[in-house]
């Protein structure tokens, strides 16, 4: 209760501003660097160039080259450096320009960051945030369009989070930086220009491991992340206006730890599930969520629909085909309708 009140008070104190997703990232970095001298930013082109996606514009002028550091092009090496900085007192934020580049740092991400504390018997903590930018819609071709969000979710010791809105980007990045464990933070390139209100108050730091209901509804639960969240929200509006179907949209946010409970609570209301992911279903968060819900007996088997990337294709450059590959608003509407019709015991709109 008191937390809610404080948030409200802070918001009323004109802390809410309209920011693009890009500006929200930059604001989170700046605010955390002001708050804590231990926070550093490093990566390719992050200093004077302001980052290839302009998410660190103005930071080097403000915080200097020691805290905003251009690195050579060697992801495995500079994430290793971040690890060395982290276990000796710093909180480095590392930018990896495209998610497709994460595997070049495979050892650092798979073997070092998550295992370091464990192997030492808990002697240290590893507060490294690795920001990675991915996703389709840029016409960047096969090696620059992965979201990569599910690739590293099965690594105990690591936390994995996705930002679907400007306010999420702000509050989740601040949470990731403050967390004492390594966090892999996913941004979607297609969202950088989106503008929305961001609560820039001191208390707007997201809770680690919690999903968020972004649109309340009663007939069907749509779970999504990143750009698919935006499409799910558009689909929810169409479903309400066009067909009288009330869709609850859940932004899953964290893939590890994965918040099964919030989805379960939503399903208890709606009894129908649509998963929308910009990635393959196999070995991803959608499959994990379905499996977990099945295990706990809360999966509405007959009225579940899953929208993912096709499992037999890769993302092409071809603009028309790139668009055709990714779940669209129309497809989400269709799947939600199907899920609703599959369980007629619950009358849509009732």
């Amino acid at each position, binding site marked *: 209760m008191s937390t809610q009140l404080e948030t409200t008070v802070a918001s009323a104190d004109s802390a809410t501003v309209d920011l693009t997703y890009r500006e929200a990232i930059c604001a989170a970095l700046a605010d955390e660097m002001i708050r804590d001298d231990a926070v*550093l930013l490093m990566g390719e082109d992050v200093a004077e160039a302001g980052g290839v996606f302009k998410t660190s514009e103005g930071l080097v002028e403000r915080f200097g080259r*020691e805290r905003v550091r251009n*690195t*050579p092009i*060697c992801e*495995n*090496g*500079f*994430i*290793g*450096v*971040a*690890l*060395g*900085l*982290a*276990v*000796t*007192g*710093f909180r480095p934020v590392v930018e990896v320009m495209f998610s497709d580049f994460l595997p070049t740092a495979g*050892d*650092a991400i798979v*073997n*070092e960051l998550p295992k*370091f*504390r*464990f*192997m*030492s*018997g*808990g*002697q*240290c*903590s*590893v*507060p490294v945030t690795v920001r990675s930018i991915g996703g389709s819609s840029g016409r960047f071709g096969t090696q620059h369009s992965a979201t990569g969000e599910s690739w590293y979710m099965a690594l*105990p*010791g690591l*936390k994995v989070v996705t930002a679907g809105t400007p306010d999420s980007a702000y509050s989740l990045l601040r949470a990731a930086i403050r*967390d*004492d*464990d390594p966090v892999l933070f996913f941004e979607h390139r297609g969202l950088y220009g989106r503008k929305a209100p961001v609560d820039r108050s001191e208390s707007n730091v997201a809770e*680690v491991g919690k999903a968020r209901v972004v649109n309340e509804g009663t007939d069907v639960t749509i779970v999504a992340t990143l750009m698919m969240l935006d499409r799910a929200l558009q689909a929810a509006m169409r479903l309400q206006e066009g067909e009288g179907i009330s869709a609850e949209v859940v932004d899953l946010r964290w893939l590890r730890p994965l918040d099964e409970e919030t989805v379960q609570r939503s399903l208890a209301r709606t009894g129908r599930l649509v998963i929308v992911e910009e990635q393959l279903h196999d070995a991803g968060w959608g499959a994990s969520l379905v499996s977990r819900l099945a295990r706990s007996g809360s999966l509405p088997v007959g009225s579940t629909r899953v929208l993912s990337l096709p499992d037999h294709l890769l993302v092409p450059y071809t603009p028309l085909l790139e668009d055709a590959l990714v779940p669209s608003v129309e497809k989400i509407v269709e799947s939600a309708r199907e899920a609703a019709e599959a369980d007629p015991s619950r009358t849509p709109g009732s």
Partner: protein
Amino acid sequence: MTDRPLTQPTPDLQQQLAWQRRMLEIRLFEEKVQELFQQGLIQGTTHLCQGQEAVSVGAVSALRPDDYLTITYRGHGHALARGMAMESAFAELMGRRAGCCGGVGGSMHLTDFSRGLIGSFAIIGAGLSVAVGAALSAKLRGTDQAAIAFFGDGATNIGTFHEALNMAAVWRTPTVFVIENNLYGEYTPLKETTAVEDLARRADAHGIPGTIVDGQDILAVNAAVSTALERARSGGGPTLIEMKTYRFRGHSRTDPAKYRPAGELDKWLERDPIALFGRHLEENGHASSQELAELRTAVQLDVDAAADRAAESPFPTLEEIVDYVYAA
């Protein structure tokens, strides 16, 4: 090769005797490890550093208590040289709670943050960039701490070696990179995988000094590392040091090292760093052969007692190791 005299001594007598004792501890510790393996008290695998003790002790003794080290799966020598109690190391190899990592790390991950030993890596080359990070951290904090990374000849062919040297050079971090060139990368001779014989030459590619040192000569090792550390602390940047050395055993426990040419091992055994330094102590009148024999007996007793005490420690439980996964 056997004729070369040891570099002139600089450390005092007490220090020299302490070095000899520490090298003996490492040698006999690893002999005991073999024995404990036969008894089933240690399982999995181990990578012994027998023959390379002068590198561990000579280099580590050049460090200050507040410096940082990253080591590798062949790390018993460095950990003991840094002052880790033998009991703690034995317990770790036995998977016991009293081990330096609570028993979950094992032989390949001897770590002790209280001694600046911030990581022991079982992935080739991974420790180098972490040492660069620790050195950068010291620089950003304005201290004159340094970081030293130990790794084998095989690591000089993996990308992170070059990535780390380049970053250290560009950012002038106080880092000392120590190659322990024991002539074999796992089971394969270096000349089969590497076109240059002197790995120190690779420093040229990154614009930093590279030096070659007789790794069997503890005085030479200590002098070279001391010089590099001084350079690092005074803002001169990183140094690459190649220690020419040899491992008397195979790569790991199950490797009998039959791929080595006949006579090679014998030739290197003549330059056993412990015998070499013992002779030096005798020749300079610092210790008699009887005193050196007594030292060995005393160390053996310590080793046996440490192993016995370690074996009494309980195993950790699954419940308690959960806390090691996440800090928050």
